[in-house]
């Protein structure tokens, strides 16, 4: 395995392309429902075939998140999940599963640490990449420079509302992958598969073959199957976090989520 996070992510996408499937990157807030159990849940998801993970560092005012991930974030903050604790969880996941981990957070905790310090710590913890939900390409330059210095992949967003000029700016900035927002709205489970994924993927593909990962509103095997036809990867968050919050016991959480992720992984195979 390479020691550069961005290359690790690239290898993950390449392997899945060769196997004619999309990667599955489940999201869970670090330390939910507690630190030990959250590591067990990540291990169960790896055993079920997840390709990598998004580990959420909680923030008090998560503008991109719906009620389920907000609740998980509030719970994590109350129980003392700081950036350092979350990065301990990252290290444990990487050690235990060997899968690439992306850290997902909001811009203020990063600024409070200092951009360079934050990225160096994230890389030292063993993560492969960073996603910052409220950081548009316009403000990303110093963050992307720090990611490059630290050997981390950095992710930028494209939304169905993103116009062609902005999309070109996102591609030009050369992110490790484009997080393609499948639904106009905050994170959360939806009933219907997104009608935006085909069009958004086509618009990105016209400009670049950068990996495309769909997220927001993807919560069932059917949604995953639909998105897998158009992108290189899929992030599922609220569907997993809700199962963890609703589980009766730690062991139950790991087995419920493992079984769910197994179904999602099956749906990532094309054709």
């Amino acid at each position, binding site marked *: 395995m390479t020691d550069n996070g961005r290359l690790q992510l690239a290898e993950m996408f390449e392997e899945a392309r060769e196997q004619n499937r999309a990667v599955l990157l489940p999201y869970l807030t670090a330390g939910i429902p507690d630190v030990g159990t959250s590591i067990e849940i990540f291990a169960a998801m790896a055993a079920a075939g997840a390709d990598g993970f998004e580990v959420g560092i909680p*923030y*008090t*005012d998560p*503008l*991109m*998140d*719906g009620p389920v991930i*907000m609740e998980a974030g*509030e719970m994590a*903050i109350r129980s003392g999940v*700081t*950036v350092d604790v979350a990065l301990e969880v990252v290290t444990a996941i990487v050690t235990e599963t060997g899968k690439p981990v992306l850290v997902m957070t909001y*811009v*203020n*905790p*990063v*600024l*409070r*640490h200092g951009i360079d310090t934050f990225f160096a710590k994230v890389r030292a913890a063993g993560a492969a990449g960073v996603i910052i*939900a*409220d*950081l*548009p*390409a*316009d*403000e990303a330059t110093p963050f992307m420079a720090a990611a490059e210095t630290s050997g981390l992949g950095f992710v*930028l*967003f*494209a*939304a*169905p*509302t*993103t*116009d062609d000029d*902005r999309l070109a700016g996102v591609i030009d900035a050369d992110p490790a992958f484009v997080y393609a*927002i499948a639904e*106009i*709205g*905050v994170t959360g489970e939806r009933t219907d598969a997104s009608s935006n994924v085909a069009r958004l993927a086509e618009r990105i593909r016209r400009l670049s073959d950068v990996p495309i990962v769909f997220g927001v509103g993807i919560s069932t095997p059917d949604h995953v199957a639909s998105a897998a036809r158009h992108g290189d990867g899929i992030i599922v968050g609220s569907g997993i976090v809700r199962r963890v919050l609703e589980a009766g016991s730690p062991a139950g959480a790991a087995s419920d989520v493992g079984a769910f992720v197994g179904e999602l992984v099956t749906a990532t195979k094309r054709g």
Partner: protein
Amino acid sequence: MRLDHPDDRGRFGDYGGAFAPETLMPALKELEEAFVAAWADDAFHAELDALLEHYVGRPTPVYHAGRLSEELGIDLYLKREDLAHTGAHKINNTVAQGLLTKRMGKNRVIAETGAGQHGVATATACALFGLDCVVYMGEKDIERQALNVYRMRLLGTEVIPVTTGTGTLKDAVSAALRDWVASVETTHYIIGSVVGPHPFPWMVREFQKVIGEELRSQLDGSPHAPTPDVIVAPVGGGSNAMGIFYSYAGDDGVRLVGVEAAGLGIATGKHGASLGEGSPGVLHGSMTYMLQDDHGQVLEAHSISAGLDYPGVGPEHAHFKDDGLVEYFSVTDDDAVAAFHRLSRTEGIIPALESAHGLAWIIANAEHLEGSVVVLNLSGRGDKDVQQVAALHD
């Protein structure tokens, strides 16, 4: 230095910018373009000016508070924003943004409110322009501002309680932004202060600067209209203060004083003094001074005044603080309540608790201000606070 407009990244010096989810970025660009076009359009100004005169009741008077001046040994003038329609300066901004909403072809408006004054002003503009309106309000604020909740409902607005986080203004802004992420194609967010991602801080300042511009012509140095030595305004998000300060900022002859909430006392940690006690960070889409812990988590603010109970402040105030254009101080709940009573008894004017913070600073510093011409921005009337103040004495 005072800037006419922020730079092309939406910055006032180090502060401002647009830190928002990508889904919103195109709408922020669209809003900036719509605002720039409208603000350069005589027809927009003509329509807005007519509404400000005949509907809002501008210009608002400047009143010489004679009895209180005598007691304090200063020459105290009140800029009577409390006499604007709906009882606060907030209507200046909502009427203008309502017009802009129509120009952009959107038919739904969302807003946040703390004390309820911005919510009422938004509900009013939406009734006037025939727009659907939803206002997010923290559950704690809904309790302490029941009158304004009922006013909004009377005006046809849906008030949605926000139960997340601290249940106050901060969480109402977050909830409104989350709604906007989902509804951005049909909805305009009428933000209530000089906060949020670019272009909001700039645009709201432009819509509120009429307060200071009027004051300049009202206190022009002619007989019985001396030019101000000191202008004082309360600062929560900072829209009334920016409105009255802006045209004086950088004017050497005039001292500008912003007054934040010291709540139960700065030493208790229960306050809303983002400029005085906070540090730079990103809150609600812009870089500014904010109350945060060592991990970058946003801290709960405290003030008896719901409008000052906010852990951030407009980015242009952050710039003014660093540049020394405005001095910022803070006043406790108790001193604000005492000033609330004093203005009521001496002048027959019941001020909003927000405005009472400005007056409390003047009272506390009257000795140093002796003989000065002092203007207080009386940003709102206090009817909404009467029940809360009465409860203090039960």
